[in-house]
């Protein structure tokens, strides 16, 4: 390059103004039929029942939106480390509960629910919060009521409480103390319910800025056989399905006074001996971060299972067990090529299983055939959310 061209480059660095002329000269060299392309920005549809959302977790600060049918990525919702995403049941917004320091990890702490338009994925607004828990891989720390009007944000500071957000007015409305309980589920017309360290379920009747807390009788052992806090809640049946470390399955009817049915053993439902808490008892056990999912219409539950001793509840599953919850029967066992850590299921007529593991590879499996429809590399390694529009 000559001295002359360096001077041209110097001119370039003074601003944009000179660029267009230069490019016009360039464009003049092009064949007549070659039109320079223009840049634009895509929009997407509102959340569809076949879409699933994979949180990138600790390493990737975004939740990728995939179409389960095509395996294609549709877009990304920004979810920084330890953020929680929830989908507006009305399909208009994505909500992200997040905590941001003004200087990365120093400066001023800012807690908020950030609202994104579901079609443009543009930021709509930020709703400031007094706080939220910092933890990864949890579905039930940030939940939206069935009608989409209220969000509940779990806080732990280390006092335990819930911050309530009016999503219609887009503002924080109340902070309610919730001693000894966490892991939220909606309780339509009442407020929310939660699991507690004494083995009970708490129900919080929200009245304005106050919460009236009642408890069921204790029904599980939170120390020795805990319920996985990533449980499933069914909006249509107002039913929660719980799974314990040993493999006990509970269903709870959610109301002002929730009732919990007697549990059954997933291993017994498969015709083998029930899981136990004792060491040296190797058995099939549930495990993972998000170890279970329920298909609403059919009442089928899908559980990540591995062989091991007790206290291996974070271990990835080598099989998925399909449980007919009403019949208390394991009706199918899917063998997995790679161990999987999170599982979700589409609420479609022909359900698809979505899974990912430590490697961050997402898997789409057809429940009917067991066929692997898609394997998506670098999809993300954390929580999987499904779209379930009203």
């Amino acid at each position, binding site marked *: 390059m000559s001295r002359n061209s360096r001077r041209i480059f110097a001119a370039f660095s003074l601003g944009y103004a000179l660029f267009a002329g230069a490019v016009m000269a360039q464009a003049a060299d092009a064949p007549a039929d070659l039109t320079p392309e223009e840049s634009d920005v895509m929009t997407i549809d509102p959340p569809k029942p076949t879409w699933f959302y994979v949180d990138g977790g*600790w390493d990737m600060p975004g939740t990728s939106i995939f179409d389960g049918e095509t395996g294609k990525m549709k877009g990304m919702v920004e979810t920084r480390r*330890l953020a929680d995403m929830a989908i507006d049941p009305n399909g208009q917004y994505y909500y992200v509960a997040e*905590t941001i*320091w003004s200087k990365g*990890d*120093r400066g001023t*702490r800012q807690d908020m629910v950030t609202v994104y338009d579901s079609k443009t994925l543009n930021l709509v607004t930020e709703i*400031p919060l*007094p*706080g939220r*828990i*910092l*933890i*990864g*891989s*949890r579905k039930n*720390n940030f939940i939206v009521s069935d009608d989409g009007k209220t969000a509940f944000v*779990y806080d*732990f*500071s*280390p006092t*335990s409480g819930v911050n309530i957000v009016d999503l219609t007015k887009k*503002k*924080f409305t109340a*902070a309610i103390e919730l001693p*000894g*309980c*966490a*892991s939220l589920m909606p309780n339509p017309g009442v407020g929310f319910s*939660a*699991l*507690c*360290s004494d083995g009970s379920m708490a129900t919080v009747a929200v009245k304005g800025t106050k919460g009236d807390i009642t408890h069921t009788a204790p029904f599980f052992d*939170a*120390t020795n056989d*805990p*319920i*996985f*806090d990533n449980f499933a809640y069914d909006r249509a049946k107002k039913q929660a399905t719980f799974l314990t470390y040993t493999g006990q399955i509970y269903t709870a009817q959610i109301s002002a006074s929730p009732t919990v049915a007697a549990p059954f053993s997933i291993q017994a439902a498969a015709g083998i001996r029930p899981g136990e808490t004792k*060491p*040296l008892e190797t058995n099939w056990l549930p495990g993972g971060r998000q170890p279970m999912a329920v298909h609403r219409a059919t009442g089928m539950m899908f559980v990540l299972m591995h062989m*091991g*001793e*007790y*206290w*291996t*509840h*974070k271990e990835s599953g080598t099989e998925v067990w399909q449980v007919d919850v009403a019949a208390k029967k394991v009706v199918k066992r899917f063998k997995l090529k790679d161990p999987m850590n999170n599982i979700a299921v589409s609420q479609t007529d022909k359900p698809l299983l979505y899974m990912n593991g430590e490697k961050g590879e997402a898997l789409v499996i057809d429940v009917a055939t067991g066929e692997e429809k898609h394997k998506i590399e670098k999809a993300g390694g954390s929580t999987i959310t499904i779209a379930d529009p009203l």
Partner: protein
Amino acid sequence: MTKFNADAWGEKLLRKFAGGSSRRSMLTRMGAALVAAPAFPLLPVSRAEAAKPDRSPEAKTVFARSAQTKDETKCDYWRYCAIDGALCTCCGGGIHSCPPGAEPSPVSWVGTCINPDDGKAYLIAYRDCCGKPACGQCGCDNTDRETQLYMPQLNNDVIWCFGTTSMEYHCSTAVLVGAAS
């Protein structure tokens, strides 16, 4: 809406507790006691078992049966029975020491781990060191008696950085607090 500042709140409580001394020096003096604190819901269990603790191989978890007492930079070191994260011993810190520039959280989750040398159970406070980016070395995730979020003092996924100037997670220590039985 006034902004709730968890850090300031934590510090205020801690200062009050420490009679107005600086947070760091208070922490040095009181750290062990404070951090062990969330363990107390364990007490009924520990005491119930204390009558006749069964430390036979048959009563030990997979972790306890294979734990070692020599190398604090390995995931199978006995104190790490319920640790989750990077070992501070691999990050320029020590078993109860934060690496330079990091700050120990005054509260923590806890584990009850068996020392294979004496067969006894000890209460371990897993104090996170905070205020620096994730160290990345020696990632471990052991889960003996690790429970879920509604019992946070026994959950190892929570970012246990309260009352520190920054809640960024750097690494975890395993501080011996007392005998568990």
